[in-house]
């Protein structure tokens, strides 16, 4: 393990980096516990004198904010939280599942041309706004607009190039000989991949899963365009916290953002050992 003494300049640089990185999080958390009068006060209030949980309560009881004379929140955020969890988890599962087997196929059984990476990543080369309208038409014709199956399908389509490409790079770094040894022991190709390849790229799998989940969890454009009444997600709900009595409800938006960050933070901590391994997997090339 290489270690480096913490010098003063290094400490300053690290401290500054930490401040820059964590300040937005600090600000969102503070705004989430501010009463409406402090949301955009001038000069800015860094830490509220009278912290409140009213913004969090308003997420699930729209009338809670009325105690501050602010009205107009009409819907609880319950549906959007559940919608986000459902769409993101299912879409991530399918994206990783399909991406993993695509990656194994590409890494072990395909003769790739120079165009292959381009073809795989071509789906990501258009801005979402450019492909949103065609999808509206396709989904309308096929009756999957404003349904979770439609939203999940587009999430999978959009994240599949990432998951395929990321997982392929992890599998590429795994020596083929290990799988071949398993096959010599009598395992089929599929079983060799299931019992040998996948456990050995577990770190990369966790890292990719986390990355794909974040992409799905924070996706806004498709969720907005492809939803009417039945489908809603957290990013779409965030944009709706505007009322005639107080304008943008920064505190309520911040409260929902804090809630939205929680699964990522908790999940990140839970799998951080795998993440570290995943991120550095294959760093030393053979």
């Amino acid at each position: 393990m290489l270690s480096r003494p913490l010098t003063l300049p290094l400490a300053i640089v690290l401290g500054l980096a930490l401040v820059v990185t964590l300040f937005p999080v600090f600000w969102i958390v503070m705004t989430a516990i501010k009463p409406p009068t402090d949301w955009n006060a001038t000069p800015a209030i860094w830490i509220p004198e009278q912290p409140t949980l009213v913004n969090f309560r308003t997420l699930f009881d729209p009338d809670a904010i009325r105690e501050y004379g602010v009205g107009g929140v009409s819907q609880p955020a319950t549906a959007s939280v559940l919608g986000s969890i459902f769409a993101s988890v299912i879409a991530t599962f399918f994206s990783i599942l399909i991406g993993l087997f695509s990656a194994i196929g590409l890494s072990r059984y395909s003769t790739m041309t120079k165009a292959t990476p381009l073809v795989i990543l071509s789906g990501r080369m258009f801005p979402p706004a450019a492909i949103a309208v065609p999808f509206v038409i396709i989904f309308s014709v096929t009756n999957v607009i404003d349904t979770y199956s439609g939203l999940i399908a587009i999430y999978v389509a959009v994240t599949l190039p990432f998951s395929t490409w990321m997982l392929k790079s992890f599998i590429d770094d795994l020596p083929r000989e290990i799988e071949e040894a398993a096959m010599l022991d009598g395992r089929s190709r599929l079983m060799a991949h299931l019992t040998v390849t996948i456990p050995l790229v577990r770190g990369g799998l966790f890292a990719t899963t986390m990355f794909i989940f974040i992409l799905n969890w924070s996706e806004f454009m498709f969720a907005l365009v492809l939803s009417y009444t039945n489908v809603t997600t957290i990013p779409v709900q965030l944009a709706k916290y505007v009322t005639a009595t107080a304008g943008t409800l920064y505190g309520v938006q911040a409260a929902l953002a804090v809630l939205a960050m929680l699964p990522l933070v908790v999940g990140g901590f839970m799998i951080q050992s795998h993440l570290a391994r995943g991120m550095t997997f294959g760093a030393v090339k053979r």
Partner: protein
Amino acid sequence: MQKNKEQIESTLDGFDAGQMSRRGFLQRMSALGVSAMVANTVMLSPLGARKAFAAIGGAEERAWALAKEAAAKATKKSLTLLIPTGSIGNMTPYVDKWKSELGIDLIFIEEPDEVVHTKGMQEAVAKTGSYDVMMPTAMSYPDWIDSGVIYDLTDWVEKHDPEIFNPDYGVVFPANHHAQLYNGRVAGLLNDGDQITLLCRSDYIENSDKAKAFSDKFGYALSTPKTWSEYHDIASFMHDPANNFYGSLEYRSRYYVKWMFMQRLISKGRLYFDNEMNPTFNSEEGLAALEDMLKMNEFLHPDAFSFTWSSNYNAFGRGEGFMNICWPSGFKYSKAPSTGPATSGKIAATVMPADKLKDGTLLYAGMFCWGYGYAVSKYSANPELAYAYAQWMTSPTISMDAIPYLGGYSDPYRVNHMKQPSERMLDTYTAPYLDTLYNNMVNTVPDFCLPGGFEYQDALDKEIHACMTGEKKPQQALDDASRSFERITRRVGKEKVQKSWLALTKNLAEPIKKASGADKWG
């Protein structure tokens, strides 16, 4: 309703003849099935009960009769409304009535206001039938009608008469034309009188030391500004950045700054195009408007370049400026102690300042911008019911009741809202401000309510903003905006836009038509 017609008429005659007390009149009308809102309005009308009932109660009653008929026939027992986020407060008070008396569920789909137009265009493609009633701004009507996503309401309007042109109760002219019609046909029913007016701090005006210092310095009395030149003088005089108090809170932010320019331009007697669709802002007047704005920049609130409507209202309500150019909801904010702790009871409002024309006359002009309305989706399962809802909600009586509810965007737009306001309307807006709204609205010029209107608006906004930030010189900004306008006109089709523009400019206040030359456009 029809059964009771004779009894209602005799009650009205009796009340007009003084044979009945107010209480007796209300009880009798209630017993005859007339809504309390209609009875109250009729009772208070200076026209006399019979005439008032015929005019004012009619639109609501006719709409309700249509709603009953359509609801009875409807297989889908709900109406879905696409509305901008934050506007729901004017509609929720009536949900129970529609459910209990008609069996119709009102379902609201809230979308951020900047997304509503896109959602409408998307529905034109998707044809899902997810919406029955849609609530866009008037600028959406041309594109929505042309794309076939909403009905032309003219036939329904002729049949059920929502009284939008009634001189006593109708939508104030010229907004009744420019905020509801597209090419002379009714595209939507206005439910929100969005116009910008000027708010000032009355406590500063009434301060004798300030008044004296001001008149010593400028040679005229301190009051709300009557002209743009006075506006500049007063802003410079009141500007006190050391004490976090600024001359004005006028917008300089993207999306809003174009309106500040357009307002000045029309005050100078220029519209946005001539009759041949050549942009007219790239002119002496346009340049002067930009120069005026640049001169004002030093007296603006430091957040002017990032203001949204809500942050602007909040800053003014916190007492951070002497003047504000804002929508009527800004007045409500400033008046309410919760949102206007420093301004409650200290507001003097006025129509937008006038500008001096070349012949020396003063021209008063106002901007009608935003301004939501109800449109009926072509893909609605119950279009008649959707229309009935739109007419009922915007009728002289229901709208009088709906507007004062907090938690919605609706502001006064009918003559009776301003000239014969209910107690609640007066409590919300005050009599002087309602007068101001009326006097400003009669001189309003519309937004780009044309095919491609959003593109024109954005192109202008981008260039004006670039000029205000110093990125472009005024002439360069106007040249570039002008070129963009010509491109948009070519792409959309000159004849199509021209037809719409000429229809739009046919109905403007006479002084504005005369100053701009639109009176000769035929």
